[in-house]
């Protein structure tokens, strides 16, 4: 079947819950199976080992959740988007469920090339918040210090980190557009066994930090939140050590990045979760838009 007669269905899906521990290849394979289970008339490539014509957004690391992943699957016959979405949802585990579908132009740029803007949100559970705060210089609010480190990292320009047996360089100048840290206190309701988060009262120290990252990717690469978070954590841990309190944020960052960063826990965060919360593309006139119109409009072509 010639290319021009195909239909390019764009589907938005989530990756959440336990399934955020899936690796990228595991997600791709699973989605291909979902498409086959859904019985959609997918097109296959030519050649000796024909496979489904489908393409995806950039890889999410193991453990990272998302509410905004996409794929384009090429169909041989037209299926109303609403119906395709319903079949896909039925064939999908809930934690990987699609939530929007619509057709896009066959000549439109590929998702991985077009989606240059991504935002992440992370919640970070502090190991021992009060001890940490005590170690930070001058008893300043820890989030303020944390933000200083983030800014110092950005000013440093890049992070060299260890990946497998190689060292890799992650640029921050062109990839990190903004970062914000907020502090939360966890409140347990003894009666309903539920938890809620609130902002700390004056003088109170938070249990959790919220980190919001606004990022941009180019041919030079994309930002990997887990690398930034571990660098940040290593810097905070280093700053907290006796004798280092007097150092400035820039000095701390220069010190911990003097050697390639090993991406592993440094004791400040007990646990953290990252979610990709938006992926957008830039139009010719510089506006940021989603790859598909909002779900309510996605009724067909």
């Amino acid at each position, binding site marked *: 079947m010639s290319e021009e007669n195909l239909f390019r269905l764009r589907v938005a899906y989530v990756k959440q*819950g336990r399934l955020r*521990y899936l*690796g990228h290849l595991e997600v791709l*394979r699973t989605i291909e*199976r979902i498409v086959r*289970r859904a019985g959609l008339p997918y097109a296959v490539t030519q050649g000796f080992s024909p496979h489904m014509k489908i393409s995806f957004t950039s890889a999410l690391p*193991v*453990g990272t959740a998302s509410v905004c992943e996409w794929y384009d699957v090429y169909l041989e016959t037209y299926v109303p988007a609403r119906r395709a979405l319903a079949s896909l949802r039925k064939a999908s*585990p809930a934690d990987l469920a699609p939530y929007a579908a619509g057709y896009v132009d066959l000549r439109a740029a590929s998702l991985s090339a077009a989606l240059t803007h991504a935002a992440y949100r992370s919640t970070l559970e502090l190991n021992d918040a009060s001890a940490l705060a005590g170690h930070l210089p001058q008893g300043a609010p820890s989030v303020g210090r944390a933000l200083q480190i983030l800014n110092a990292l950005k000013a440093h320009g890049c992070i060299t980190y260890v990946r497998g047996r190689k060292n890799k360089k992650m640029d921050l100048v062109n990839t990190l557009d903004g970062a914000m840290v907020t502090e939360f206190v966890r409140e347990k309701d003894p009666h309903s066994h539920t938890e809620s988060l609130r902002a700390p009262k004056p003088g109170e120290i938070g249990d959790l930090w919220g980190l919001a990252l606004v990022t941009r990717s180019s041919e030079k690469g994309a930002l990997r939140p887990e690398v930034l978070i571990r660098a940040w954590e290593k810097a905070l841990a280093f700053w907290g050590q006796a004798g280092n309190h007097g150092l400035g944020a820039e000095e701390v960052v220069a010190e911990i990045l003097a050697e390639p960063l090993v991406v592993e826990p440094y004791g400040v965060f007990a*646990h953290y979760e990252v979610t990709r919360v938006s992926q957008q593309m830039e139009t010719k006139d510089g506006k940021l838009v989603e790859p598909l119109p909002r779900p309510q409009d996605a009724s067909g072509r």
Partner: protein
Amino acid sequence: MRAAYEDLFHLIEPLLQGVEKPSRYIDHEWGALSKPDARFRVCLVYPDTYEVGLPNQGIAILYRILNAQEGISCERGYLPWVDMADAMRSRNIPLLSLEGAAPLASFDVVGFHIPHEMAATNYLETLDLAGIPLLSAERGEDDPIIIAGGPSVYNPEPLAPYIDAFLVGEGEESIVEVARELERSRDEGLPRAERVARLARIAGTYVPSLYEVAYDSEQAPHGHAVPRADSGAPAVVYKRVIADFSATDPIAQSVVPYTELVHDRLSIEVLRGCARGCRFCQAGITYRPVRERSADQIVAAVARGLEQTGYDEVSLTSLSTTDHSQCECVLDRLNERLAGTGISVSIPSQRLDSFDPELAEAVAGGKRGGLTFAVEAGSQRLRDVINKNVTEEDLDRAMRAAFEAGWRRCKLYFMMGLPTETDEDIVGIARLADHVVELAREIVPKDQRGGVSVSISVAVFVPKSHTPFQWCGQLERDEVKRRQQLLLHSVRSRQVRVSYHDADVSLLEAVLSRGGRDIAPLILEAWRRGARFDAWSEQFDLDRWRDAASACGIDLDRVACEPYEIGQHLPWDHVSPGVSPGFLEREYRRAAQAETTPDCTRTSCTGCGICPRLGAENVIEGERK
């Protein structure tokens, strides 16, 4: 008190970022069955990692059957890889089932699959991680009942002290009977010992605690098991065989994994059993009689299975798929149906004597990867001894056809240390390999010869119970080493690549295959010294086993290599696939004379005794060639 059945996923979740392949531990796969509310809970455990165990058809079949039972819930368990096991142990986190993330110790029954002998220490590792006493005799009223079954159940003695009851043979019916009996006896409030003993009344169930070890003489070092007086247990437990294979659901799988597996595809068991009669092969005896599914049933099952799972590959599995009387017709129909979908059909390797390049191409989706053939022995005499009915002409014809049709790579499997083997037979292996290279030189165009690769893989023969070679010992290790060197020096062509199975692993496999109940303490001692995942070469260490053996006063080489005498009681006599001892003895004698025995699905019954003993018969859909 029994551990509570509760979801403890939050205990392992923090570990997931730090271990290899976290998707091994997360469940939530497509098609996972589970019942949060059930009166009776079974956890079926594959004694290896998730990705090794998930494709297992035996567990898949029983998982479906049990979950279809009213009031019974069946979950799965796998052994965490060493990184996860160590992390869990150091934090006192017990082993959890997959679906409910509940402690194994909270189930009514834990059922092990027994895939092969080398998993021995993994049962202990599993039980220990689960916090369940390792020895049946030490388990209390609240501990789960530990059952086991699977292809390697035909010498259960080395595992006897650790397993409450073995289910011998096809489990489709007996697993339900056992579960129902245990549910009843639990509800009646019977003591554990009595509940376990009652299982012996169910056909095909071997309850080791009802047997004691007797010795014919001092020459019988391992003894043999006999029922205790008044136990009511049968002297011989015969395997179960299901009444009607064609009435079972051909789609065993329900779960579609996320983790990448070696065999990541839909499997349809198209036939059960093989009657070729290779004398070294245990499966060739223990899966009899031969029963084929009809072409219509297979084709319909493939379509339905693909729809349910979304796989892009389907494998038609069995011990010998091309023996199916309608194999070609099934493949034609499937290839026609699946054209243009990107979905491929595969079959396990073809046989040399019936190799068909067109068929090979059809199942490879037009790709010409490597071909593999089991030749097993280097001379016609020795192939007659083992009843491997392939000839040098078969090899010649198949390889010519393959090279002409464009194949360039092949791998030939052989065994070393077969009964009556001489140096001539070893040199014969080299000669066959050289001959294949010569064929390639003759047929393959010059500019493509670089792509030609001929490799031979040589395993050490391990004598197995209930085969005509069950009396034989394994070849001594030094002699194995010498013959390996002889083979290496006999190969002339530099294009032949020779690889061996590790002789150390084969030695241990022989010990675990041939020993009696006396071997059980060795397994425990080896596990205490750190042995686990012995089937993984990176984890296996013979020295650990040697140390354990000397601590137990066991001579590994002697257990592996000392032959049994005909007429002696054997440690596995009391657990039988139904084969008559006289048949095995006759086959053994025919082997010594290099006399072959035909395939009973192609000629007439050759008298193995299995059909009359089990009240079953071969079911062949068409005419076998």
